[in-house]
């Protein structure tokens, strides 16, 4: 039994070699990302159509709750001066959440591609660095690496670089591990059911042993953890860390 867990499919390619960046490839990741953007945007449009000042609908109450929760989360973690960060954090959270959960429909999560998380982590890292430079000046930012003693400079640089890497790899690793474990489980249960039903003698057993009967139901239980729990948790953790890092950077 061979188990082959592959990366995202490359659907299209533009066959011009561009230096450094390589060929433009349109992979499953990108297509599903666009679907995610479309879904979130349509949801937003649906939530906010026909808004009223009084006698609001449940739909509007939900939309207002979302906005207020986002405000509370960002302002609670970062303080009121970072109110302008609310749409960014909301976009980060919703994209991450919908990307994680879209695997339930059978599409491949964009978050199961390291490029996605790396892109987000780089954006966050840029914001952290910008806040640090803003709060202590460029000289102060560079000097910060030699604190508390100059010998520690390489470690400080390493720890600085570890921030975006850990941010990206934590999220990616959790989603990928879910895919890997699900793949393994499906294969293992298929083998188990084939062996189990093969015990039935004669032609019936021979036919039934090709039906992976154990694959029905059991993986759904694990999916509650790997898709739902991990999906929500990682989106939350990513946003939590983002707000914390940026707020800490601003404090200098």
């Amino acid at each position, binding site marked *: 039994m061979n188990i082959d867990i592959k990366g*995202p499919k490359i659907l299209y390619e533009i066959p011009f070699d561009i230096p450094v960046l390589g060929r433009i490839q349109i*992979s499953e990741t990108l297509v599903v*990302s666009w679907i995610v953007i479309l879904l979130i945007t349509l949801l937003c449009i649906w939530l906010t159509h026909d808004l009223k000042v009084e006698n609001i609908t449940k739909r509007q109450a939900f939309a*207002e709750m979302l906005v207020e929760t986002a405000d509370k989360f960002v302002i609670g973690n970062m303080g009121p001066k970072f109110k302008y960060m609310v749409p960014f954090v909301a976009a980060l959270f919703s994209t991450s959440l919908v990307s994680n959960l879209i695997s339930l429909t059978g599409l491949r999560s964009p978050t199961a*591609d390291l490029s996605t998380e790396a892109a987000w982590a780089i954006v966050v890292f840029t914001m952290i660095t910008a806040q640090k430079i803003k709060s202590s000046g460029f000289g102060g930012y560079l000097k910060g690496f030699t604190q508390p003693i100059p010998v520690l400079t390489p470690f400080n640089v390493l720890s600085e670089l570890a921030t975006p890497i850990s941010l990206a790899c934590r999220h990616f690793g959790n989603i990928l591990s879910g895919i890997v474990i699900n793949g393994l489980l499906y294969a293992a249960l298929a083998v188990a059911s084939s062996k189990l039903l093969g015990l039935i003698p004669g032609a019936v057993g021979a036919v039934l042993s090709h039906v992976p009967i154990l694959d029905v139901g059991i993986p759904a239980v694990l999916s509650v953890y790997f898709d739902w729990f991990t999906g929500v948790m990682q989106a939350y953790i990513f946003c939590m860390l983002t707000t914390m890092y940026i707020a800490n950077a601003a404090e200098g």
Partner: protein
Amino acid sequence: MFILLETTQNQELVTLIPWTFIAQILNLFLQMFLIKKFLFKPIREVLEKRKAKADAEIGEATKAKEEALAMKEEYEQNMSEARDKANEILANAQKTATVKSEEILKEASENAVSIKAKAERDIEQEKRKAVNEIKDEIAGMAMEIAGKVIEREISEKDHAKLIDEFIENVGVQ
């Protein structure tokens, strides 16, 4: 023109694809823009409107309360003025009534006094008149009696003296 070639390749399980990386950065900002435009902006507008409306209503209520208080104060002032006026009128009326009643009483007592005096005068006069009449009658009777008793004419002088004695005796009795 770009040419899109369909492929059946898969990318590595763990790898960084530069174009996907760049596209995902752009996607994130696109998503941020879309969420801002379609969720945050309209919801914040409606929340702002609601807040403005609530503020306006509170302001109106405060104004109405102030007006009501002013009206109440005015009403109370008017009431107290009216009460004062009523008291004044009442006091004046009482005073006038007292004065008038005193006047009436005084007049009445004066009248009574004068009526009483007049009555006394009348009584006195009547009494005197009656006494004189009785005097004359008694005198006549006495003359007749005396004439019959002594059967003689007595002088006018004796006559008067006898009458006076008689009356005095009668008065003593």
